[in-house]
């Protein structure tokens, strides 16, 4: 039998305070990054605006492109060179008067240089009102997902556990958001999809550990809760790690081979899955233990 992490007997819960510091630090970095960047950097999906990916042959200078876009009346546009030569991503600045920004810019790029051809690879253009609608829809979807998960966990488990699971969930999603902000990536529709999936898979890991804790609590009723949790965590650790490995393998494949369009999605998933694994032990279980110990102290205090 080829095994990893079998028969280990680590007192995870005694070291939970280290984890609190790690989590606290990661959360703090996320908060600082979000504040420094003035909140999440929303993509055109949510702010409204136009994103244009073009391929120009022969490959032009970036300044030529900038001038052409500016002459078409779009001030403050961001222009970025992509991997392939001549492939350029343009994020248009606002221009209230332009009725059809993508066509206007394309025409300007075609005029830029004699004999160059412009192929429009991708256009994403979202009106400001649709952008704000998508934003509120995204927030509603996240709240709905969290709400559904909370209700489910609350029905299936003791509330003492649910609280730890919920905190772990927020922890994971928030740190993923922080990582996106830190790497200066945009929050787009696909990134929101990744955040929701992170929420789902984060709670998934937690549930597996909780299931085992519940099982062990019945079989080891006399033991101290801390010991019960350690046993349960150690027993499920190999599964927790292996599942994360398989998911991370596929996410890595998406990250390295899936192309630009889902690059940010895979990045968010990667961060989320890693933290989801960590938090199921160090946040969810640790907090469940904290709650339990606290309750025992107070009821014990009352008894005296």
């Amino acid at each position, binding site marked *: 039998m080829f095994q990893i992490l079998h028969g280990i007997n680590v007192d995870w819960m005694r070291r939970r305070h280290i984890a609190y510091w790690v989590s606290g630090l990661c959360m703090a970095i996320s908060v600082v990054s979000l504040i420094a960047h003035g909140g999440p950097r929303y993509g055109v999906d949510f702010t409204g605006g136009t994103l244009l990916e073009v391929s120009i042959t022969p490959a032009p200078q970036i300044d030529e492109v900038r001038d052409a876009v500016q002459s078409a009346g779009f001030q403050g546009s961001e222009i970025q060179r992509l991997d392939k030569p001549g492939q350029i991503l343009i994020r248009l600045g606002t221009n209230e008067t332009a009725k059809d920004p993508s066509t206007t810019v394309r025409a300007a790029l075609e005029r830029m240089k004699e004999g160059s051809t412009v192929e429009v690879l991708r256009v994403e253009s979202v*009106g400001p009102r649709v952008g704000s609608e998508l934003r509120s829809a995204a927030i509603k979807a996240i709240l709905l997902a969290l709400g559904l998960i909370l209700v489910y966990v609350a029905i299936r488990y003791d509330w003492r556990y649910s609280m730890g699971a919920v905190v772990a969930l927020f922890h994971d999603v928030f740190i993923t958001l922080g990582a996106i902000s830190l790497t200066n990536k945009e929050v787009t529709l696909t990134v929101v999809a990744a955040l929701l999936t992170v929420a*789902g898979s984060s709670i998934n890991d937690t549930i597996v550990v909780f299931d085992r804790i519940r099982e062990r609590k019945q079989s080891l009723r006399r033991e101290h809760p801390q010991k019960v949790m350690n046993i349960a965590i150690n027993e499920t650790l190999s599964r927790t790690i292996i*599942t994360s490995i398989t*998911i991370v393998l596929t996410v890595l494949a998406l990250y390295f081979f899936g192309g630009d369009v889902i690059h940010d999605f895979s990045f968010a998933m990667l961060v989320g899955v890693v933290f989801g694994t960590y938090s199921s032990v160090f946040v969810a279980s640790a907090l469940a233990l904290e709650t339990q110990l606290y309750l025992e102290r107070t009821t014990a205090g009352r008894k005296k």
Partner: protein
Amino acid sequence: MTQSDRNKLFLTLIGVAICIYTLWPTFQFYAMSPAQRQEVLQARPQAATNEVDRERLQKLADLRDKAIKLGLDLQGGMYLLLEVDKSKLGAAEARNAVDQAMQIIRNRIDQFGVAEPSFQKQGENRILVQLPGLLDQERAKSLIGQTALLEFKIVKTDEETRALLDRIDQALVRQGGGASAAGADTFSAQRPFTSRFLSVAQAGESFALSEHVAAIDSMIAAVRADSSFLFESTLAWGAHESEREGRTGRSLFVLSKDPLMQGKDVQSAQMRLDLDQERPGAPGVSFTLTSRGGATFADVTGANVGRRLAIVLDNRIQSAPNIIERIPRGQGSITGSFTEEEAQNLAIVLRSGALPAPVHVVEERTVGPSLGQDSIEKGLMAGAVGAGLVVLFMVVYYRLSGLVAVAALLLNILGLLACMAGFHATLTLPGIAGIVLTIGMAVDANVLIFERIREELRNKKTVLAAIEQGYARAYRTILDSNVTVLLSAVALMWFGSGPIRGFAVTLSIGLIINMITAVGISKMIFDAWSLRRKVSTISI
């Protein structure tokens, strides 16, 4: 093998057969050469001229309907969310405006010739148009966005025109008040409006240089805002730039307020190259009016011989010919500096009628075909690498049992694809990501079970008991953990549109099938294998 095992095996085989049957058209379709595929996509049996053709095309159309469709992000295409501006409509008109607009846009696109366009009404005043495949994006947008309100109006005489321009001048001076008092005696201060023009009221036209057009427009808007006299007549620009004294500019016309007739009386319209005698070969559009429209047209032209008749499209004057004599048969033409494509578009929009209200594009997502192809290749690559890594890991780590998990995984993906074909779901790039992620998550169920079996074995249970216990104990956890991911996928399905929904769809179908394959089918394989041999060891 017990009877119930045999039944399970039978059911599984039937399931697999159904899956393969459902996926067969998809396989056929994607095995074709790109040219053949294009033919299938374009097949329109209702357009066939004879029975043999119709049958052949019907077969192709059926194949197209049964194959898994690629989303716009993979095959390339346009996603346009349109908003109908109902602000200027009455309550009664507003009620049907969106449906009418959708019908008209559908007509236009049908004439343009796009394979499988889709039109959906969204909410109160929006229309979602999806145009897959290769197409001229700009042309499609101009076809959809044009209101195409065709009106015929009489051009005011030079005296009337001059009188109106004078009044605009006076109104502007009054508005400007003391502000421009410093230069009160100069021509431009007394006549702020007229002075912008190179020539005024010559055969009804007033010519301004192109760079002044915007300024003139804003003056007109300012006057219109606080005086009512402009309501008696309208001002409209010529649709095309022209040259005077070697300088380019546009002509402004003063027109009668009410149209003599409107474009809904147009019966047919064609692009033609022989309309302009001065410029043979220049594209233009000839149109024929309905008999009722033709009668009105005859009356109107008869009553206005000697005056100019402006043919106005979306408030721009396409041409303003002199009425030489009464035109009895209701035929007319529009000429100007069109390209052939523009003339073709104009003919299409005239034939399909005017939109009841202006339509704006509020969201546009376009993916060019080369990026789509690139995404397909990258998605497949990522899927292959991801699946390969997971398979390798499972087989190395769990050996023969790992192979069982891989078999379950294959059936999972097969079932997922078959469901997509069966439900006519669309495969998008995030959808592919969902499938790849399903691969990673699906084995989780088997990992849970196998780890449990290993534990039971360590507790000195027999192989059979370990398998039984492993499955029984892991099942509830698998259910719980899949449900939570499903819940977030449901939220995503409800919120997301297009590609994102594709992700939620593939992920949820994948996880639902996972509960059957990873638990049921893998158990069946174990049972079949272990019961027959009375095994005492297991490769796990």
